């Protein structure tokens, strides 16, 4: 069952990615430059109406997928790279390296996430890359802990001990064999992190900390709320759809993790 769920999740993710990549061709308007009448209701020309400065909301949604996915993937990549390096060094070398790195990890674990991310975003120039770096740097601690514990168990496997005894260097073992063992774990971790990144980005943008010149689902909701879309019926086509997009992609990524979880479990059973 899990495999099927993961498959469907993958399908959804690919579909959304294709839409994001093809947004300039799929969108009926360019949401950055094309401006018409403001606050239009949904119609044949504007499927979801227009916003406060006359941009087509449906096109905004399609372009927003690009931002959300890009920030999700970039922040996940940063967080996983930092987390794995820290976890690997910690687990592989042990001793004082381990103790120091685990102290740093514990520090990043207890530091309150959203307030810190907010203050860092407030004090830097907003933009997709900045946001991804901030989110990535603030979210690697969990990965580091899990990678460390995985390394500890891999380290003592017989074949690793054997090639080590044959004179293989640490760099060789870590990059050729240990990384391979960790691959399914990375799959699982990556989809969980991309999902967290997308949700955090939308929260930040909703608080007004996103870049004002880049469309994302969070910023659409932020402007809709700022322009009191709630007091009219406009929220139905202005706030509801971007939220549903976030839910859709988040569900897709969660479903992918179900499949990976099973893979990891099975490996644990066989080891």
């Amino acid at each position, binding site marked *: *069952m899990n495999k099927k*769920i993961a498959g469907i999740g993958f399908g959804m993710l690919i579909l959304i990615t294709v839409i994001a990549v093809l947004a300039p061709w799929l969108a009926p308007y360019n949401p950055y430059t094309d401006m018409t009448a403001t606050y239009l209701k949904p119609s044949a020309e504007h499927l979801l109406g227009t916003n406060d400065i006359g941009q087509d909301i449906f096109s905004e949604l399609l372009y927003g997928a690009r931002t959300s996915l890009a920030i999700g993937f970039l922040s996940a990549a940063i967080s996983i790279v930092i987390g794995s390096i820290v976890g690997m060094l910690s687990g592989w070398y042990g001793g004082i390296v381990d*103790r120091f790195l685990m*102290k740093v990890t*514990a*520090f990043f674990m*207890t*530091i*309150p*996430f*959203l*307030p*810190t991310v*907010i*203050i860092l975003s*407030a*004090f830097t120039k907003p933009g997709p890359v900045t946001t991804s770096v901030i989110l990535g740097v603030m979210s690697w601690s969990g990965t580091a802990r899990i990678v460390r514990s995985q390394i500890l168990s891999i380290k003592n496997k017989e074949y690793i001990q054997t090639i080590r005894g044959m004179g293989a260097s640490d760099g060789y073992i870590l990059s050729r064999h240990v990384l391979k063992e960790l691959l399914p774990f990375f799959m699982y971790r990556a989809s969980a992190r991309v*999902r967290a990144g997308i*949700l955090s980005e*939308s*929260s930040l943008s*909703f*608080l*007004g*900390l996103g870049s004002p010149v880049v469309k994302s689902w969070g910023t659409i*909701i932020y402007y809709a*709320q700022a322009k009191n879309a*709630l*007091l009219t019926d406009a*929220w139905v086509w202005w*706030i*509801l759809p*971007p*939220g549903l997009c*976030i*839910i859709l992609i*988040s*569900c897709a990524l*969660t*479903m992918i993790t*179900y499949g990976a979880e099973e893979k990891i479990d099975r490996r644990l059973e066989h080891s």
Partner: protein
Amino acid sequence: MNTSIRKRWSHYLILVVAIIVINFFLPRLLPGSPLKSLVGENPGDLTAAQKMGILDAYHLNDPMWKQFLYYLRDLFALNWGNSYSKRQPITDLIISRTGWTLLLAGSNMILSTLIGTALGAWSAFRRKKKKDLSLVISTTILDSIPSFWMAVILLAVFGVKFGWFPIYGAYSMWENHTGFHKIVDILHHLALPLFTMVVTSLMSFFTTSRYSVLQILNEDYVKLAKMRGIPKGRITVWYVMRNTLVPVFTLFMMDVGYLLSGSVLIETVFTYPGLGTLMQEAVKARDYPLIQYTFLLASLLTIAALFLSDVLYDRIDPRLEVQEDE
């Protein structure tokens, strides 16, 4: 035991010191004149003498280490300067806001833990399967809903459209309720934000409690107890629920750190006058001193909550002896 508590003390102490230091350096890392972050976006309107006066008043013409000492003195004297967007001392602002956040976030913590755990256990007792498709689907979807979005939708439907709940604030500002009516009024304002928070945060308690109950139900000692004819209710409470307490409390501990995080978003939507809204207003107005000190207080509160639950952890489960360093 003593060493482990001392070790934890030192961990949290380092954290507090680090946050205080970060709080000192962040605004100083900003490009441009510090005036911008002290008096707002238009320092150009001031005369040179006024500018010097402000720099002197904030000791910004002194060497860095002296500035840091001044900063520490003001920090502990609760002399946190003025918010230029609100034209009020920051300490006053923060003190008046903290209570509301604690009310909202605290009630959420209690309710979501209790309701989530109870629902999880109930669903485990009812269907003793580990995999349940409809449950998987509903938890996946519920878990994917951004809390702020759900808050906005609930506000639009139940606040604006139906008018069942007030649409902003923590109490009716233009009426003078007293006694019982005042409490009802406050609860009425609390209902919608609290509901949103509980629904979006009980999911993790639900899954943890459900999973651990299912696992414990398969343990030999539970099966043996059944065979020995011990009453069902007694098994449920003393054999199963007692052991679910540990994973649930672990989760509670982890969630305490997110207590204020969730609150920032929900408060913003409902313009609930807590620290979260204050932080958001400060961000919107680019009121740097105010951003800085709400961050400081939010962080310190989070750390205090984490520390408290960390100490309580030992009390909950005596089996857990904190491991000494190898």
